[in-house]
């Protein structure tokens, strides 16, 4: 059921409302062994690359602090910096629009597209336009929105949803991609060649030809932005493939939808951001392409530039003194790649465009904890702390998860999770019961041997969504009693 809370909260869309809660979705994802294999390979590869290039920068900690500080300066004085950004954008020839929520943002974009009398737009991957479900809104109005990032193209042609911030089609392997291309490309444009193999280079070539046709005829481009510099009015898009450059350069009209938390105060703040983001994100010293544009540049690129500044729940997150640090997020996805829960469940289980540890924090913050999925998300973590260590802007995700759990328990008291917590509290509060539970668990450990245990007596639903390490065949108390020669009963 959609939340009817008035005020600044992000409205949960019909698609996401239909999503199962995290434990249900996670159980389904766990059954998908192909996905688990792909995810494991991907997260470990990126993780290793990231560690190597971060180690090249001796001052990494100082950089993290600089990055966090730049974002905090912008967030804590956001009103002033937004006004400054608007003024500098406008003086450079851009048109600035403001949108309270997804609906308003979609209407603004739609009005601009309609005024250009076109029935298609090209898009560079943008999480914020996924968040507001812009493609769906455009399709409903008869306008095709072509995603041009290779992974997004795979996702779109596969009638699917992205599952990772950075590698959205991480859940697909090459032969699946070949089948999708052969089956779908021809229905929306230049078909894939008949002799297409599943060689990644051939698949990329097919995408290049299919998309180039669209770039060269598109009149309107749609993007997000990684950063918006308040003092110069510069917008920044960071990418690898060049599809971003295509969308930002070739169309006559460019519409950029920018969350209000993307603002950074000054040009100089770009330095730590560009030092932190590529290394944390893809494990590269720098991503292949970064485009910076400041309003309209005469004779080069789009001659009509629109910027839509979007709230959609962000001011609500900003009001929370502890929680506002989540708005520092630069969407690098480092926290996803180190998360043991994400590695096993994949992105779809989070029921949102923001998956992984940051999604578990951000979604309930943006949308409130009224829906079942948002209630379950703060529990989608083992609180191991790896996400905090990886985060280039030092967002203390574990701390925020614990805060949110407190909110959920306070507000409800009757969810499966809080019931599980009560059961745990009941067990833990009495030494005899604890000893009994541990014995039972140890017995279970002997029975299952080296296999992974998915549930512990007395903890029930709480553990269903994650793998617990194999249980010892002897509890600590039993061991203590044996070693010390005492009976603990």
């Amino acid at each position: 059921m959609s939340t009817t809370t008035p005020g600044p909260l992000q409205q949960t869309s019909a698609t996401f409302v239909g999503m199962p809660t995290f434990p249900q979705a996670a159980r389904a994802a766990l059954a998908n062994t192909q996905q688990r294999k792909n995810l494991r390979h991907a997260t470990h590869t990126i993780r290793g690359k990231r560690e190597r290039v971060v180690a090249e920068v001796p001052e990494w900690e100082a950089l993290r602090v600089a990055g966090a500080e730049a974002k905090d300066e912008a967030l804590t004085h956001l009103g002033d910096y937004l006004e400054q950004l608007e003024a500098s954008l406008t003086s450079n020839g851009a048109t600035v629009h403001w949108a309270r929520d997804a609906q308003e943002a979609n209407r603004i974009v739609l009005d601009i597209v309609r005024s250009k009398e076109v029935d298609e737009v090209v898009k560079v991957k943008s999480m914020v336009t996924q968040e507001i479900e812009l493609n769906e809104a455009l399709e409903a109005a008869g306008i095709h929105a072509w995603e041009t990032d290779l992974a997004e193209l795979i996702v779109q042609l596969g009638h699917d949803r992205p599952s990772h911030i950075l590698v959205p089609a991480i859940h697909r392997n090459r032969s699946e991609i070949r089948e999708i291309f052969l089956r779908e490309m021809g229905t929306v444009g230049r078909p894939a060649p008949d002799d297409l193999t599943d060689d990644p280079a051939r698949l990329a070539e097919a995408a290049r030809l299919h998309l180039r046709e669209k770039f060269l005829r598109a009149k309107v481009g749609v993007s997000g932005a990684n950063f918006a510099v308040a003092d110069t009015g510069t917008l920044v898009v960071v990418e690898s493939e060049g599809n971003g450059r295509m969308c930002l350069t070739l169309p006559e009209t460019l519409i950029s939808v920018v969350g209000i938390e993307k603002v950074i105060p000054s040009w100089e703040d770009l330095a730590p951001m560009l030092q932190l983001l590529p290394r944390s994100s893809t494990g590269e010293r720098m991503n292949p392409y970064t485009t910076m544009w400041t309003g309209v540049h005469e004779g080069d690129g789009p001659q009509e530039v629109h910027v839509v500044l979007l709230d959609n729940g962000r001011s609500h997150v900003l009001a929370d003194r502890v929680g506002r640090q989540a708005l520092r997020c630069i969407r690098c996805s480092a926290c996803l790649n180190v998360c043991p829960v994400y590695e096993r469940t994949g992105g779809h289980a989070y029921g949102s465009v923001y998956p992984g540890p940051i999604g578990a924090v951000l979604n309930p913050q943006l949308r409130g904890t009224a829906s079942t999925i948002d209630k379950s998300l703060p529990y989608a973590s083992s609180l191991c702390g790896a996400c905090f260590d990886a985060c280039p802007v030092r967002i203390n995700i574990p701390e925020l998860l614990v805060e949110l759990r407190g909110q959920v328990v306070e507000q409800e008291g009757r969810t499966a999770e809080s019931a599980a917590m009560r059961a745990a509290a009941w067990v833990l509060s009495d030494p005899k019961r604890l000893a009994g539970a541990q014995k039972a668990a140890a017995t279970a450990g002997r029975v299952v041997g080296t296999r992974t245990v998915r549930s512990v007596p007395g903890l029930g639903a709480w553990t269903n969504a994650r793998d617990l390490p194999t249980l010892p065949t002897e509890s600590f108390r039993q061991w203590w009693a044996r070693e010390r020669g005492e009976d603990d009963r």
Partner: protein
Amino acid sequence: MSARDEILARVRGATSDIDTTPDDRGPVVVVDETSPGEAETLELFAENVADYRAQVVRVGPSGVAAAVAGALSDHGCRTVVVPSGLDPSWRAAAEGVARVLSDDEATTHLARDDVDAVVTASAVGVATTGTIVLDHRPDQGRRELTLVPDTHVCVIRADQVVHDVPESVARLRPGPEGARPLTWISGPSATSDIELERVEGVHGPRTLVVVLVESANG
């Protein structure tokens, strides 16, 4: 209330606990990656550019034209676009091996996707990341020019190479004449979207040749 006023009011309300003023934080923290010396910076730049599988050709000032011609013929480029402000001797070198289109003739050819290569100068190079930044002045041309052709031959002088990202950001800060569009290039177009296997060039040049011009004594 307009959306603008409502959002600003919400944001101001949300930060009412803050008692500092904007820009109270002192100078922006700059985390340098210090250079051991100019020669080392150039070496690092060449090494990092090559690490992206871009090709690096190191020449003295008199060798640029030959390097440009060599790069174009090595990659079998038959049509090449050059920006209006390109050094005339480089343009002449390109004319020796390929059909040369100038910036204004290029548009329809770019649209038909039948230009093989582009030759440009550059604005800044960054050693720690192996990056070349174009600010699209007349010797670099419009952004489109370096995007559609399959081969990009890019000339950069040693004195344009800085050591780290903060230095490059400082050099590129928009001046009073207004902000220029910037393209930061670190290696050829690449994707790892299919099973994380690196594939070069989905869009944008698949071949990047960097001609690094060092002074005669350096």
